[in-house]
Each structure stands twice: as C-alpha cells, then as structure tokens.
C-alpha cells in the first residue's frame, strides 16, 4: 500500500479539512506568515490560490492550539519546503497551459484539485512529500506529524468507518465526518491520514490520495477470468 500523500492543497480545501471557514484560515495564514511563502497566481479567471504543504497544515494546527508546539521550527520547515525544487516544479505544472487534458474544462478549485490528483503529477508530488519529510526530520519535528496511506475498508455504522492504515493494513475506526470532508465516504476509497500532535492532543486530517491510476479500480483480468456460474 503505497500512496502519495497530498503534499499540496488549495486554501479552500485546507479550510474544509481543518473544518474552519476560509476567513479563519486567512487569518491563520496571516498570523503564520505563510502568505508570502505559499501563494501562486493562476490568472484572473481562476483566482489566486495558496498552496499549503502538509507541514503547513501542521503549522496551522499548531496556531489553533492553545499552547502551540515549536511554531518557529514549523515555520522554518515550511520555508524549506517552499524553497525546494519540487515545490517550484509543482508551481510550473499548475500553470494552466500545462494542465493535463483531464483537468481542462474544470474550473477554479476543482480544476486545481484535478491537477493535483492526476497521475501525471504523481512523481512531483512524491518528490514534494520527500522534501516535506526531510524538512520535518531536519528540525526534529517528525515525531509531531505522521503521514500514512489509508484505504476505507467498510462503513461500520452511520458514524464510523473502518480504515486500513499503512503497509501493515492496521484497522482503525474513523469518524465518517472526516471522510466526507475529503470526499472519501465510500468503501475501498484511497486516502491519506495526516496526524498532528498539538498541545491539545493528536488531530487527524484525511485527504484524497494523489495519483491513483484509473485502472486500479478496474477488474483484474486474471481474477475475472476465473469466474464460474454456480446456479442454473
């Protein structure tokens, strides 16, 4: 189970995942001085989007906490990530002229999310994820953030789902409300869990997986060939 974490997101998507209004996210961005670090203009028709890497999400989580943990270190980690070559490569890929065919015709945020989740951008996102992890390790923050691939196994009740986490497929109960935010409230959907330790405890965010090839959801021809009708 190897899925590339989100690594980047639009501001609106960030607000959804943090379960905050866009204004509150704006305020947090200003407070965290992420504004100048993570802005990408995509033209008047599509507006301006701030892209927040996963370390930025953790930083916003820290800003929300009553007693933030190591905010200055989180700031420096974010700075390193946005200065990385993979971040710049992502920005280039997000220029409209470079969008893959699947994303053209989509508008605004939906278009950007289509690009972020496209297989074409998977290598860049993978590099960016590596840059994120390296920055966290460099500043000793890796114990405050955990990122794992996740698959929704089953919808256990109206409120909870069982998700399988990481390469060992560890099963956990997750509130379905978190899955709805990420558009993953269905069986066998792929996603990414981001757990952040703040002064008030551990917070979980759920993101759609990036770069999942379309054929993953198609029949395996070998298994399909083995079918047998057992009735008459």
């Amino acid at each position, binding site marked *: 189970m190897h899925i590339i974490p989100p690594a980047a997101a639009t501001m609106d998507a960030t607000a959804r995942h943090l379960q905050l209004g866009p204004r509150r996210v704006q305020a947090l961005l200003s407070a965290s001085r992420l504004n100048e670090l993570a802005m990408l203009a995509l033209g008047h028709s599509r507006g301006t989007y701030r892209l927040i890497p996963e370390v930025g999400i953790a930083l916003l989580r820290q800003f929300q906490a009553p007693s933030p943990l190591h905010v200055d270190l989180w700031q420096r980690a974010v700075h390193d990530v946005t200065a990385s070559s993979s971040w710049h490569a992502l920005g280039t890929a997000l220029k409209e002229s470079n969008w893959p065919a699947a994303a053209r015709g989509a508008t605004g945020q939906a278009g950007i999310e289509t690009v972020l989740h496209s297989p074409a951008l998977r290598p860049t996102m993978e590099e960016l994820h590596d840059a994120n992890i390296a920055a966290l390790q460099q500043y000793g923050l890796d114990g405050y953030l955990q990122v794992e691939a996740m698959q929704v*196994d089953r919808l256990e009740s109206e409120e909870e789902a069982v998700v399988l986490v990481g390469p060992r497929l560890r099963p956990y109960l997750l509130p379905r409300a978190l899955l709805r935010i990420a558009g993953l409230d269905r069986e066998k959907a792929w996603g990414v869990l981001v757990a952040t330790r703040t002064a008030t405890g551990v917070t979980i965010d759920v993101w759609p997986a990036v770069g999942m090839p379309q054929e993953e959801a198609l029949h395996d021809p070998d298994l399909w060939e*083995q079918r047998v009708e057992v009735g008459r």
Partner: protein
Amino acid sequence: MTLRLHVLAVGQADAMILELPSGRLAVVDFGHPMLLDYIDQLDPRGERRFAFCVLTHVHHDHYQCLGDFISRFDRRVDEYWYSFSVTHRNPILQRFKQAVMARGRRGRLIIHDAPSAVPLSLETDVDVVRFGPTTWEAEHPAGESDNVTENNRSIVLLIRYGRSVLLLGADAEEARWRRIAAQAHSGGLSLAADVVKAPHHGARAPHGLPEALWPVVCRSPRSHVVLTVDRLAGKPDQQTIRAVRGMGRIGCTGRALTCRLPATGLSGQARAASGDPADLIEEALRPAPEAMVSPACFGTQVFDCARDGTVTYRPGISPPFLDACLT
C-alpha cells in the same frame, strides 16, 4: 463420522473451520490470526488437506489473516472460492490472487446470475450450495451506488451432511437474503438449518437477515444460531435477539467489556523495542473491532453434526449476556 463446525471466538470477525467426515478441513473466512493457531491444534502434524477455503467478501474482519494462512497452509488447499475481482493494490488480496492463479480452475470467482441454486457434491453425503453475487454486483465497485455493497457480494454457504444442515450467512444483507430465498425456492432447496451463523454478526435488517426469514432458516426451536459479536459495537442487535428467541438456541462467540490491545498486535513495550517511532494515529484512533482481542472471549462454538441430523454442541455463553444485550 460427523461434520464438525468450529466457529472461532474472535469478536466481531468471522473465522470458521469445518472438519469434513473424510477428515479434510475447510475454512470459511480468515477474520483473525487465532485461526492459524486453531488449525495447528486441530492438525498438529500438518497432514490434513483443505477441501476448500472461502473468502466470503473483502472486508478486513473476514480476511485479516488470509496472507499468513496462505504462507503456511496454501500447499494443502485444494480449492479457493471468492467474490471479488479488484485487488485495490491490497497486498493481502494480491497474495491471495497469486494463490488463486496457481490453482488454475480450482480457484474460482463465484458468480450467481441464475434464478435457482444447485448443490455441489464435496464428498460422500456432503454437499454445499454456494449463493454468490450476480455479475452486475461483481462488476461494479462497492459504494458506487446503494445497490452495491461489499456485504452483498458475500458468498453464503448452505452445507448438508445427510440430514444435518448448516447455513453460514457471511455478511449478506436484506436485499441479498430475499434473492437467496428465491433462488433456494426455485431450486427446490430448503434454507432450514440446524446451525445458522447469523448474517452480518447479528445486525438487523436492512443490514442483516430480515426478521421474517428467521423462521425460514431455523429448522426448529432446537436449531442453533451463532452470533459472532462485539458488544461494544452494538452487535448483536437487540431486535435480532428478540427475533431469534423462540426460533432457536443462541450461542455467541463474542465478548462483553474487554481489554483493548494495540491494533498492531504488539504491546507498547514490544513496539518500543522494535524501534518504531511514536504512533500518533494509534494514539488518536480506536482500533477496529477485529483488532480488539480479548482473552475473555465467550468461547469457540463447536457443533458436531451427524448424518442422521443430530447436532451436539458446546455452548460458549451464558444467558445473562444476552439479557444484558437487551437492556
């Protein structure tokens, strides 16, 4: 000679073993690693073959130890039956695919489009009716619409040895049961059983067996109904217990309030020794029901089914538990 069914006490998960009259084994679902130890106890010399192994559907509480089972016992398995065709890059399902493909035509994706059901003879006096999903259900991803759920892709088994009948309901829900009842009727088969593994851990309709079908699947008030339950997860449903009472005798393999162990199966000390970093996800989330193992399970249920229809069993639960469920 008897047909013996072991329903393992693994909480809200399914793991069952059949001992066929010939001495061969069969496995229905792989919901907990306890299954592997249990097989070792049944067959300490590792000589017995598995006539068939069924993965009823791809929910983790039914395939948790499938990969380990294949690693240890695959060479002795004659047939695999399953109901999925997308592995979703799941390493356990991909391992299962390898084992299936190595079986050639003895690894079968069960499809049941026909309006009626047909028994398959396993050995002398033993046959099994397999109720499977339709092609349409097997083709469409679970969750794509309300009409397709992984539970309703379950393979349901009706096993007969002489006059003894077992009905293993997997996690089939109401919609599937209505079709199963029609297919059985059309095929001239009765669903009335001496031992019923309650569908979907004892959930009520629409997520389990419709109340009106309990009198159909319980042959007599002496029938045994087994609930593989997790009290903390709200199963068995109180309505199910009420429906079953009077129809059959209830046995549970589940547990009441119990200790919680890490979903990884490692104690905190062992994990620290393994060098894993702090696990924030484990700290923040509760383990799924199948990951919570208790030494205080109510006990595995064993049923000895004779050819003349006599069924003897070892009860694993005392009535006060059921009364507690009804409060």
